[in-house]
């Protein structure tokens, strides 16, 4: 018998230097790892993201937050002082993906899926048995 697991509804996080801090007071999605070339370039590694609604996020230190428009659909937020990758925002959705590494431990989250595995780097393998999609969650068929 498996117990139904409650997803966290509260989280805190900050960048490496502490200039940008945030608090999430609302439902958080489990972690999805993105292997697309853009994510791997910007993070320097494949990142795992949770997601929440902007209206549930309180942000401090916004002055240090720099946004880079990485595609027509999305922008990426990072700290101009320490370079920490914090946010991926699909523009106009009211939601934001939050890099799991920026969250304080324990997060209570689990990794549930890999996306854009068709663009995976050649320098690592995915061994965990989780669902893999060749592209995004909206358009991809299972890899």
């Amino acid at each position, binding site marked *: 018998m498996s117990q139904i697991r409650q997803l966290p509804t509260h989280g805190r996080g900050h960048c490496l230097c502490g200039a940008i801090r945030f608090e999430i007071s609302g439902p958080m999605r489990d972690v999805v790892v993105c292997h697309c070339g853009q994510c791997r370039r910007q993070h320097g590694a494949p990142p795992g993201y949770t997601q929440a609604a902007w209206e549930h996020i309180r942000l401090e230190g916004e002055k240090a937050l720099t946004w880079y428009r990485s595609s027509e659909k999305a922008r990426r937020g990072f700290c101009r002082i320490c370079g920490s990758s914090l946010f991926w925002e699909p523009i106009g959705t009211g939601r934001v993906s939050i890099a799991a590494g920026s969250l304080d431990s324990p*997060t209570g989250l689990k990794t549930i899926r890999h996306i854009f595995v068709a663009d995976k780097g050649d320098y*690592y393998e995915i061994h965990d048995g989780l669902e893999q999609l060749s592209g995004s969650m909206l358009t991809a068929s299972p890899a």
Partner: protein
Amino acid sequence: MSEPAKNAAPEAAGHCLCGAVRYRVFAPLRPASACHCSQCRRQHGAAGIYTGGLPVESVAIEGTEHLRWYQSSAAARRGFCGRCGSKLFWRPMDQRTIDIAAGSLDQPTGLALAQHIFVADKGDYYEIVDELPRFPGSNAA
């Protein structure tokens, strides 16, 4: 720092997401390490993956005016692109070497992940399931 021969073929090359910072590597890449330390996880937003220990003089960097360095500890500083935030380099303060974030390398890299380090600081939101060597801290003896 001596300049690598400009017409030699590089062993590897890479760039940040926006292309403002580009580099070429004129030395063989070393096997990659996944670093699970909390500093890497905060800055990368994920476990860092680096090919490390390259002689600094073997890496030719263009667009250095966009490269920003953050001193993350007494031991090291981290280089990223000020325009797009891409993580590129980790450089110890007291050595003449540089580590390169594997995600910034052009494919194919020919690299293979060889080990996990600082697994004692791993995040709770993922598991390490491969059979590679794991070290609670650095792998230095």
